């Protein structure tokens, strides 16, 4: 019996459980298996299952579950996430990878708001991430500042910097805004390396997070269970990611979501009806960079060290590639694509060196044959009771 034969709520809930299980299972398998050949087989099986899932109607079912029973789905995801952390509890590397995926996925959510909704190019995602990180590093001496404030400031500074960058060219149309983010993305590195105050090429040390006496650098102990200290960060980052996922969804399903889409699709028509294009462009750009900056600060505190080499133009390009691969404007696509783009090169070592080339080629191919990406964005339908 396939899930498609189950109608209504039960089928939808089962579908979302299956999809969550598939994601969690794939993550655990890929992260735990060390042998390269076994890993290759495992990746092939996951690819096969992912190919089958839409055929069985599971994806559609999960999607509908998300629309009709959002809180049930959120609960299922929460359970999935907790079991993931539980299974990987003392695997430092695996937890670091999960954290990295969630950090990149958050930056890509920001780019989704900017590019996917408002149609603004951002080729400096890694630079805005770095801005948040360096903000946290610069505030390291201000020990009186609670870490939550430091993290928020990372977001605020990145957002403010982005707004200053783009404001002058907001009134111009088309590609000029792309130029400023491009230039920022490319020059960010060199700027940091030349700047002694920011540690030059060697970078800066950053203290870990402490919130209300909860020291994130110590192992996490819950009852009789002991977790790697990375579990602290995974939980925090997971919470922030969840918050921003909901934020992004609320933006999309609101009047603002319509305004942003319209700004992307037809500036002229929309201004004639009274929409202030530049206001919504700066809103989208600022909001997106805020997400990147917040995660940048958390990232710096998690790795306790940042250097210019972490925020290159290549990384910014990877971020854009993730958004396109996942399906422009699709939040869940972003998460899936981030897993692929981050994990694959990290685990299949022979890819590592070639990853930028590989993803560049994948994007070229995608643009030719399937520009909508892996999970295409759906037309917005405001929920209606029937």
């Amino acid at each position: 019996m396939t899930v498609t034969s189950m109608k209504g709520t039960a089928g939808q809930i089962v579908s979302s459980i299956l999809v969550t299980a598939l994601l969690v299972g794939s993550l655990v398998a890929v992260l735990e298996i060390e042998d390269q050949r076994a890993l290759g087989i495992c990746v092939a099986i996951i690819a096969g299952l992912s190919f089958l899932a839409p055929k069985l109607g599971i994806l559609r079912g999960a999607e509908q579950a998300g629309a009709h029973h959002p809180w049930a789905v959120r609960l299922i995801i929460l359970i999935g996430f907790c079991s993931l952390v539980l299974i990987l509890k003392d695997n430092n590397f695996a937890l670091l990878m999960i954290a990295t995926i969630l950090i990149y996925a958050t930056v890509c959510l920001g780019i989704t708001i900017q590019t996917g909704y408002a149609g603004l190019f951002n080729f400096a995602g890694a630079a805005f991430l770095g801005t948040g990180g360096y903000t946290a590093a610069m505030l390291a001496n201000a020990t009186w500042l609670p870490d939550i404030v430091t993290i928020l400031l990372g977001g605020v500074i990145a957002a403010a910097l982005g707004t200053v960058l783009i404001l002058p060219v907001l009134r111009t149309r088309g590609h000029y805004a792309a130029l400023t983010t491009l230039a920022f993305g490319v020059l960010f590195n060199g700027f940091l390396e030349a700047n002694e105050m920011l540690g030059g090429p060697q970078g800066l040390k950053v203290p870990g997070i402490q919130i209300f006496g909860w020291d994130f650098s110590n192992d996490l102990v819950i009852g009789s269970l002991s977790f790697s200290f990375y579990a602290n960060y995974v939980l925090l980052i997971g919470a922030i990611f969840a918050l921003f996922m909901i934020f992004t969804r609320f933006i999309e399903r609101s009047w603002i979501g319509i305004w942003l889409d319209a700004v992307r699709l037809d500036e002229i028509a929309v201004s004639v009806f009274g929409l202030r294009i530049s206001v919504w462009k700066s809103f989208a750009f600022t909001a997106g960079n805020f997400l990147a900056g917040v995660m940048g600060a958390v990232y710096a505190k998690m790795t306790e060290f940042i250097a210019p080499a972490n925020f290159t133009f290549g990384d910014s390009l990877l971020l854009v590639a993730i958004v396109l691969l996942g399906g422009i404007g699709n939040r869940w696509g972003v998460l899936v694509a981030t897993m692929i783009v981050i994990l694959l090169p990290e685990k299949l070592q022979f890819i590592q060196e070639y990853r930028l080339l590989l993803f560049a080629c994948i994007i070229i191919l995608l643009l030719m044959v399937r520009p909508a990406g892996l999970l295409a964005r759906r037309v917005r339908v405001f929920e209606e009771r029937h």
Partner: protein
Amino acid sequence: MSSIAQYLLNGLMQGTIYGLVAIGFTIFFGVMNVIKFSHGDVLTFGAFGGLVAAWAATALGFPIWLELVFVVLISVMASAAIGAIIARGLVLPLKDAPPLNMLLMTMMVGTAIRECIRLFFPNGTNPQRFPELLPSGGFDLSGVYFRYDGLILIAAGIAFIFAVQWIINRTRLGLAIRAVAEDGETARTMGINFTLTVAIAFAIGSMTAGVAGALYGLYYSEINYSMGLILAIIGFSAAIIGGLGNIWGAIVGGYLFAGLQTAVVALLPALSDYKNVIALIVVVALIAWRPTGLLAERGSERV
């Protein structure tokens, strides 16, 4: 006095290179309304092609003047060929896609070229020595030292700029290109082979990158896999200052950018590490002030 002239010469050299790159952007934008961001990496590709040609020429024992001709020729041909291939195979199929897709496409193509050079060129991660093929030395004119190679390269670059200008404005081929740029549909109904014309226009635009790449290698005697990235950004901004679609504007933009950089180095030596940053800030301010470029007349999109 002499240092001022030195700065001037250096700035002229850089401005010529930037102007050449900017012309390419202008041609692509004029013909297909695209920002072809792989342009900088096409430049790198041409320069590396020239390097290989130099190695081959040395192995074959060519005299030095022939080696020089050979290097420049191969640089130009390599760029033109890859430019035409990109246009035909990757840009044209996307001509009705949203602008983001097009920009991403050319950006990823550029990344692929850059990464291929880094990964597959022997010792590609490190900078490569480019042979010195021009007469060394120079002459002294009232305290100012003029390097022969600099003068020759600037002259060659400017001559090539005029050649491109002549092709676009004075030949039948140029007429076809301008017709396609004006209105692709109408040009087609007039019997112009649209696909071929676009490919040729992209080849010509990419030749400017080949020339710029060769000039760069011959002047600085060193090339590396990522040099095209920053040159693309500079060339792109120069083209924008010039009004995108106006060849003379692009050249003015190129020299202006070089002038800004030189001014920073000459007047604020402490900030010379940031000369690109400062020059770009000025460019963004210029764009904000005159969004359609310095030379272009204000046009309006048809509604």
